[in-house]
C-alpha cells in the first residue's frame, strides 16, 4: 500500500498534494501494491471536508485516515509525523509520500527518522519499480540523482509539478477512518504557539497560478514594480521575484521563485529583467511557456525562453499593459 500525506488549502487538497496522489497511483500501477490511501491531519471544516473527499475519490484513494485531536489544531511537525506513522502502520504501507513543499519535506523527514528508513526528497520519476529506483532533483534541478530505496518502508517527497494531477479512470468513494494518534510531550513541544498574520506565505498561490509575472534586478528598485503589478493584475496572475529582488528587500521573500523559493508551473511565465541563473531556473523550469523580457539577448533566461522581447522592461511592460487594456476594453 502507498500512503500519501495530504496538505489542504481553502479549496480542498493543494495542487501539489493532488500531483503527489497521481504520482502515487502511477507508482502503484507499476507494482503489486493494492492502491493508495491518504492521511489528513488536523481539523476539517465541513465544506472543505466535502470537497476534499470528492477530490480524493477522483484520485481513486481507497481509504482516508483522518487524524483528529485537539492537540493537532496547531501545527507541530513531530505530532503530524506521529499521525502519519500511525497511519502507515495501520495501512501496512511500504511507501509514504508527500509533496515536496516546505511542510511536506519537514514532516517526511520526521517520518523517515521515526521509521529509521531512507528518504528521497524531490523525486520526479520512478526509474525502476523492483527494487525501487527513483530519480530526484539535486543541485537545484541542474542534475538528477538516481537513488535506490530498499528499506521495508520507504519515504519520499515528490517535486512540485513532476506530474500533472489527473483523475483516475474509475473514481472511488473512500472510506474515512478517524483516529486520535498517541502523542507524547516531545511531539507537542514544537507546536506553533501563535500565528502572526501580517506576512502571509503566498507560495500556494504561486505554485498553482496559471500566469506568473516574474521580476528581477531589472526592476531597478523597490519603486519599480507598479507596471509589473498592473501586468499581473491584467492577466489575473501572481507576481514572483528573483532571489536578488528579495535579498535587496524590494519584495517579500514569500514571492521568491527558485531553488530557495517556490517552484512554479504556470501556463505562462513572463520573466521580466531576470537573467535566469540556474537557481532561478530550478524554480521556473516547470512553466509550459516562458516569455523573457530582458535587455541582454544572451541572458540564460532569454536563450531558454520560448518567446522574448529584447529591451528595457520599463518601456516594454507599460506598452504591453496599454495593449492589454485596449483589447480588454
Amino acid at each position, binding site marked *: 500500500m502507498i500512503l500519501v500525506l495530504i496538505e489542504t*488549502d481553502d479549496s480542498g487538497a493543494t495542487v501539489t498534494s493532488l500531483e503527489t496522489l497521481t504520482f502515487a497511483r502511477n507508482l502503484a500501477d507499476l507494482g503489486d501494491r493494492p492502491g493508495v490511501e491518504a492521511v489528513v491531519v488536523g481539523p476539517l471544516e465541513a465544506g472543505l471536508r466535502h470537497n476534499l473527499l470528492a477530490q480524493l475519490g477522483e484520485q481513486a484513494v481507497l481509504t482516508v485516515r483522518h487524524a483528529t485531536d485537539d492537540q493537532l489544531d496547531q*501545527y507541530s*511537525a513531530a505530532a503530524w509525523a506521529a499521525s502519519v506513522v500511525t497511519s502507515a502502520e495501520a495501512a501496512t504501507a511500504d511507501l509514504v509520500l508527500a509533496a515536496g513543499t*516546505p511542510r511536506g*519535506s*519537514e514532516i*517526511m*523527514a520526521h517520518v*523517515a*527518522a521515526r521509521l529509521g528508513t*531512507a528518504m528521497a*526528497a524531490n523525486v520526479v520519476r520512478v526509474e525502476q519499480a523492483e527494487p525501487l*529506483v527513483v*530519480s530526484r532533483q*539535486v*543541485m*537545484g*534541478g*541542474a*542534475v*538528477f*540523482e*538516481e*537513488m*535506490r530505496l530498499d528499506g521495508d518502508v520507504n519515504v519520499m517527497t515528490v517535486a512540485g509539478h513532476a506530474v500533472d494531477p489527473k483523475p483516475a479512470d474509475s473514481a472511488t468513494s473512500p472510506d474515512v477512518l478517524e483516529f486520535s494518534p498517541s502523542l507524547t510531550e*516531545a511531539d507537542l*513541544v*514544537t507546536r506553533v*504557539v501563535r*500565528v*502572526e*498574520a*501580517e506576512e*502571509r*506565505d503566498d507560495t*500556494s498561490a504561486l505554485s498553482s497560478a*496559471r500566469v506568473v509575472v516574474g521580476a528581477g534586478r531589472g526592476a531597478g528598485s523597490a519603486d519599480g514594480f507598479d507596471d509589473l503589478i498592473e501586468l499581473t493584475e491584467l*492577466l*489575473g496572475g501572481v507576481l514572483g521575484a528573483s532571489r536578488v529582488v528579495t535579498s535587496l528587500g524590494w519584495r517579500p*521573500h*514569500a514571492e521568491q521563485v527558485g531553488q*530557495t523559493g517556490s517552484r512554479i508551473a504556470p*501556463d*505562462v511565465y513572463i520573466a521580466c529583467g531576470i537573467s535566469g541563473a*540556474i*537557481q532561478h531556473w530550478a524554480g521556473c523550469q516547470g512553466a509550459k511557456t516562458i516569455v523573457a523580457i530582458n535587455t541582454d539577448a544572451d541572458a540564460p533566461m532569454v*536563450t*531558454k*525562453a520560448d*518567446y522574448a*522581447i*529584447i*529591451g528595457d522592461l520599463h518601456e*516594454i511592460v507599460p*506598452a*504591453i499593459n*496599454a*495593449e492589454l487594456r485596449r*483589447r480588454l*476594453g
Partner: protein
Amino acid sequence: MTNILVCIKRVPDTSGDVQLSEDGMTIDARHLGHTLSAHEECAIAIAAELAASSDGMATALSLGAGDAQEQLRHAVALGCGAAILLEAEPDSFGPADVAQAIAAVVRDRKESGAGFDLILLGTDAADTGDFQVAVRLAYQLNLPVLTGIVTVGIDGDTVTARGTGPDGTEVYELPMPAVIAIQEGGVEPRYPSIPGRMRAKRTEIETLPPAVSPRGSGRVRLTLPPAHPGTVKVLGEDATAAPALVDVLSELGVVSK
C-alpha cells in the same frame, strides 16, 4: 552565555555549467567554484549574532574533505569563534550518516562540559537538497527540532523561532537545547570584516575523523537533464513588440475579457 553549533557544508557553485565525473557518481567540480548554501549563510549570521549578544560562542562544523576548511574559515570571518572539520569524503555520507557523525561530536562536547545550547543548520543543502540532516540529528540527540525558521531569539532557556506558514508567520517557543534549521529570508547574510578575515587566517581548525562508518545515500548515479532546445522566438527589440506578445498570450488562452 549561549554556545551555538552551526553546521555548514561546502557545495559547488552552480552558476556555471555542471559536469559529471566519468562514472556519473559525483559532480566534476574542478571547474566550479565552491560556496555555502544560502540557508547556511543565514544560519551563520543568526549564530554569530546570538553568541555575540550573550558573550557566548558560535562554533562552525563541517563534514567534508580538507578543502572544506575554506568554508569554515569563512564562517570564522563572519563571527564564529571556533571551527571543527570532520574530515571525510562527503559523497560517501548519506544524510543519516552526517546526522550521526554530528551527533557524536555534540555528545562528546556535552560529556566534556562544553555542550551546545543550540544547534543551527540550513533547512536543506544547495547540492543534495535532502531536507533531513537537522531532523535526523535531533532524533539522534533526543532534542526538539524546527525547520524553515527565519528568525531566532533567546530569552533565558527559551528560544523563540519564527517561520512563514500558510496562514502567516508561525511562532514557536522551545526549551533549549534544540536543533533549528534556518531558511533564507529573515536575516541578511553577513559580509566578513577585515578583523574577521585576519581572525579566520589565524584560527586553528580542529580536525577529527567522523565517528561513524557511512552507509551512503543510495545513489545509483547522477544524470544531466536533456539540453534545452533553445528555440526562442524573438518578438522584437522595443515597445513595438507589445502587440505581438499580447497576440501570443491570447493564443495561449491567458487573456480573457
